[in-house]
């Protein structure tokens, strides 16, 4: 599964899709494959204010627990409630139906610290 070209990426293998000042966040194909079967996602509380780099959600596979870090500072405006009953969406559709949360972005200048799809592809070449 190719990494979508219009998304941004972090070194922690999260993706960010920016739509009208909102950052939709999920984990990449590489990350879901590393984790294995996702069986639980701890979603953040609505209106939670998070700082860039702060853990604000947790994705758990049978064997592993993985923190989801805020790629930018912001306020939680939406969470993917479908993951409560169907956490496997993170495995099946990591870039689309398996999204985790949406943040209202505080400071758009933080986006320039994220990787482009080309840069993220290059990172995956190295691992």
């Amino acid at each position, binding site marked *: 599964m190719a990494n979508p070209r219009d998304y941004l990426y972090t070194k922690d293998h999260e993706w960010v899709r920016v739509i009208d000042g909102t950052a939709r966040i999920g984990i990449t194909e590489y990350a879901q494959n590393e984790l*294995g*079967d996702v*069986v*639980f996602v*701890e979603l953040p509380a609505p209106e939670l204010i998070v700082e860039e780099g702060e853990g604000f959600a*947790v994705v*758990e*596979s*049978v*064997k592993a*627990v993985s923190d989801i870090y805020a790629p930018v500072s912001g306020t939680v405006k939406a969470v993917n409630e479908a993951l*409560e009953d169907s956490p496997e969406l993170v495995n099946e559709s990591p870039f689309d139906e398996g999204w985790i949360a949406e943040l209202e972005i505080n400071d758009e200048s933080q986006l320039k610290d994220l990787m482009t799809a080309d840069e993220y592809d290059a990172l995956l070449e190295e691992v």
Partner: protein
Amino acid sequence: MKNTPLTEQHRQQGARMMNFHGWEMPVHYTSLVEEHLCVREKAGLFDLSHMGELRLSGDTALATLDRLISNDPSKLEPGQVLYSPLMNERGGIVDDLVIYREGDGFFAVVNAANVEKDERWIRDHLLPGTTLENISADTALLAIQGPEAETIVNTAFACDHGSLGNFRYWDYVWNGIRVRISRTGYTGEDGFEIYVSAGAVQTVWNMLLKEGQPHGMQPIGLGARDTLRLEARLPLYGQDIDESTTPLEAGLSFAVAWDTEFLGKAVLTKQREEGLGRRLAGFILQERGIARSGCTILDGQGSPIGTVTSGSMSPSLQKGIGLGYIQRPWNKAGTEVYVQVRNRQLKALTHKGRFVQGKK
């Protein structure tokens, strides 16, 4: 890292490999959950060649073993298998063993992480006239587990295993290969464990994969082995039991023979007379989440009453399950307790017995 004779096969089959106590072992081939359910519904094949095997022989082998284990090896006859904790003088568990009675001694299967420790411990307690051999390197171990296991081994070895009872074993020669097959396992399903020489295991593995395929059998990694044993409420050494836990605390009193003398018996006797302060108890989470090893167990007022030793999502139940040492009286089945998972306290009910029953 150490390899089993099958490591290269696992890699070629696309297994994800992990470091398991210094052994390069498959964690899963396809998906942990898929492999888990395959064993519950059909059958699975495991490479367990990392496990250790020790052999005790000589006139005093029985007396040596009797003193070291809490169970009673004296009633064991050739062809029979016994589970027992290996004890220290403090009543703690050095390891848990599966012991095969042979014509002239005993064959003990030990946990991979404990081979050197167990060998040293037994050697330090050998009676004159007992010989101890570590045959781990020459001995490979496979397991085939699941409701289809018997059908598959019957076809594979051209032999009817229907009359091989639980905790019984047969030795025979198949196609020039010496095979030891026992009706034992670590999944809660019917199944077999198969010992062959390290040199012959590739032939047997490939043959079993081929014979099992029409029955839906798949190779299974250590990831599903752990969730299968947890659903069957079987303790794992190093997590649920260790040198600081006694067989009584761990719920292994079925493997304590009070009419024999063994290391640490005085400690167990005292515990039996005074009552246990804590017991290993199972629990099922009543809300979404997963308890992990090390999480604190709380009572309804938020006071700590125990610690989780194993925890996972149960692939069969689709709920969080676990084991932990819980103070009396909260260990009693059906008690409402809470597990601290990050900043949440998840409600759980303590549970007696297996979480999931085998199909046969």
